[in-house]
């Protein structure tokens, strides 16, 4: 059946089965390929999106479950102050390597910072251990989240 969903501030009609995960609705139907497929079983975090501000694994979020929730993907992460700060920190520290997991890393980090503006290493490890990076950028992700937190707190000449 057709579903009416709200993605990045736009309403979209998608005609798919209700069990279709948001991952494939976003990538294949909406053409938003920034959200990545990594495991399909909510074990790697590459597909992380925001559903009403909460981090969710899009591969385990059926389209029938999102109803009127606001969906945000990596494509509009820069529209939020937290997203801007994180992307800036990621560029500053050159966090990325292959880059494939980084959309999901950033979306998870953004939800973390929105809820906890000054996370400790343990807070970060707890939340971010749901996101796998095979290039091994974990140390820089951790540092990137701390750096973004300082930008948001007014340090480092936030833009």
């Amino acid at each position, binding site marked *: 059946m057709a579903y009416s969903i709200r993605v990045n501030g736009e309403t979209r009609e998608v005609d798919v*089965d209700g069990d279709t995960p948001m991952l494939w609705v976003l990538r294949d139907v909406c053409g938003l390929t920034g959200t*990545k497929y990594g495991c399909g079983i909510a074990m790697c975090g590459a597909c992380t999106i925001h559903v009403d501000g909460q981090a969710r694994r899009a591969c385990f979020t059926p389209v029938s479950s999102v109803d009127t929730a606001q969906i945000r993907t990596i494509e509009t992460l820069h529209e939020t102050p937290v997203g801007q700060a994180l992307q800036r920190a990621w560029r500053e520290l050159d966090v990325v390597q292959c880059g494939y997991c980084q959309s999901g890393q950033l979306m998870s980090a953004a939800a973390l910072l929105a809820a906890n503006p000054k996370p400790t290493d343990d807070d970060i490890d707890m939340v971010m251990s749901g996101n796998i990076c095979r290039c091994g950028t*974990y140390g820089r992700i951790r540092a990137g989240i701390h750096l973004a937190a300082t930008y948001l707190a007014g340090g480092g000449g936030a833009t």
Partner: protein
Amino acid sequence: MTSSKSGTGLSRRQFLLVSLAAGGGMLIGFPITGRSQGAAAASPPSAFIRIDRAGRVTLILPYVEMGQGAYTSQAQILAEELEVALDSVSLEAAPAGQVYASPLLGEQITGGSISLRGAWVSMRTAGAAARMMLTEAAAKRWGVTADSCRAENGRVMHKASTRSLSYGELAEEAAGLPVPELPALKSPGAFRIVGKAEKRLDSPAKVDGTAKFGIDMRPEGVLHAMVQACPVFGGRLAALDTAPALRVKGVRQVVQIDDAVAVVADHTWAALKALRALEPKWDEGANSRLTTADMIAAADAALQREGLVALRVGDVAAAEASASRRFEAMYRMPMLAHAAMEPLSCTVKISDGRCDVWVGSQIVGRAQRVAAEAAGLPLEKVSIHNQYLGGGFGRRLETDYVSQAVLIAKQVKAPLKVTWSREEDMRHDYYRFHNHSLVNVAVDAAGQPTSWHHRVVAPNIMARWLPAYQKDNIDLDAVDAAHGPYDIPNVLVEFTRNEAPAGLTTGNWRGVGPTRNVFVVESAIDELAHAAGRDAIAYRKALISQAPRTLAVLARAERESGWGSPLPARSGRGVAVMSAFGSHLAFVAQVSVEGAGHVHVERLVCAVDTGIAVNPDIVRAQIEGGVIYGLSAVLHGKITVNRGRVLEGNFDTYQVVRMAEAPKIEVHIIESTEDPGGVGEPGTSGAIAAVANAVFAATGKRIRTLPIDHAQLRNT
């Protein structure tokens, strides 16, 4: 490119091919050879620099970007000698073509930590020659000598006057000038871009979701397929009832090929759901009873077979006969999957007698050949559009997923993206195969090794994958670093070939041969030191006194790690040292082992001498990443086969290191003016060995089988 005017006096001894670029400007072609300037002369160009009328510099490289930072560091090397700003250089991946093949390897390969090493001299030479020609063009226009001009930031300046011209204004005149044969290169002391931690050029697109990977391709009208090959290695599709798949909404077609079934649909989920609804009948073939235990037994049996002699120095038998003690140990390393974050995917459009392929590949020329063969088209009708790779680690050095996608797409009247599920990716890998090793060491009364005998049991990957990298039927990668950097008077390295059963494909895995051999060598040396009652680092130092670069990294790692300072109970430090890929590295891992046996890697210190670190931050990142990849292997990595099938399928069963398990990694770079070495591979190689030795220091239990069996480390 090929339409440009050529033959501008190219002599056989000439290194560069310079011509007018199509669309205006200057085109410089040069071979990337990894050899000295002079030796490179006869090779055809495999990389190109285009300077357009606006002064924009485009570097067309036969390498791909898979996270290793090649596009950034290669651009730095060019910008340095060409005298342009780094941000005026943009990168393009070369299309597939024999012209782009590495003359060393005969293939267009990104892997083996060779990209930067290959480009170091040739890229600088090309940049310097172009700069000289542009300077000469300006001098001619002004009627002055080239000596009175200098190039800076994309312009040529006349020192005595205030005149200056941009490269863009000079490019076409420069293209017609004689090419300098052996341009002088800058000395390392004069570098202003090389050696700087310049920001990665691919960062912006990778933080805002705009970077396109192979799996992101969406040509007009694309359909989506998910595929399942016979779960048993080497099996075939016997029979299939397609009806259950065709009932799923959005499904267009079910495609059958010899060994796999694919469902084509409007979106990937419909394809996956329909694929799961199918119950294909497989002809499981010869491997239907294969188990991991069988393969371990076969590798153990191979350890008893004499191998081909890869290296013989002195007389090992005589040393063994006069030894005061003998050390013998057996090492076992498991099968491993690559598990790159981007599952394999390939998008194919076959129309009008052409085949277009969008893919992330580490071996583009071969991808083109297998696509042409599968499509039944001549090579020139096949184009490979290479994209960012969501991790390579060796998996994308293979082309099975390319030929498979083309075979499926041939049966579909629309552009088709074929995506492997994570499970498919893990169960149909080109695995790092079981590698076993037998080490025999003769030891004198002082505890020093007098002979080193290492029998390597491994498949000959190169026989299939890169025959040129064999010598006398020995896979040269398999025996790389098999006696370490140590000065031992008598050495025998044997290669005993042990292939996987037909149908089970094996291949290259990050760190390649040294990843297996550094673990073996460093574990054995560590045992020898312990048996001699010596400190593990002091013992090694005495054996590398003739290798100053190796010695220096070891001393640095010793100092930075606080080696020897007290640690709590069930904590320990382990060391590993290696020279491979043109680099020298020492690692100190610090671990603590829980009472229940779980190993925590708390800190990892690495000292690296990679020659000139073209981009020190990328060097650091590569070591950090290589270490994490190695930690996943030493702590968790194991692929298990039962009834010819791989049991692990996803990250729930094939565990990898996550952030909470990731140690603090400190990378210390030794200043050097030597030519750059490779850094993509060795972090993985060294981390495994250092952690295994640290576990011994913490628990007294020696790790000779990987991955670490945490249950055996229980403090009972």
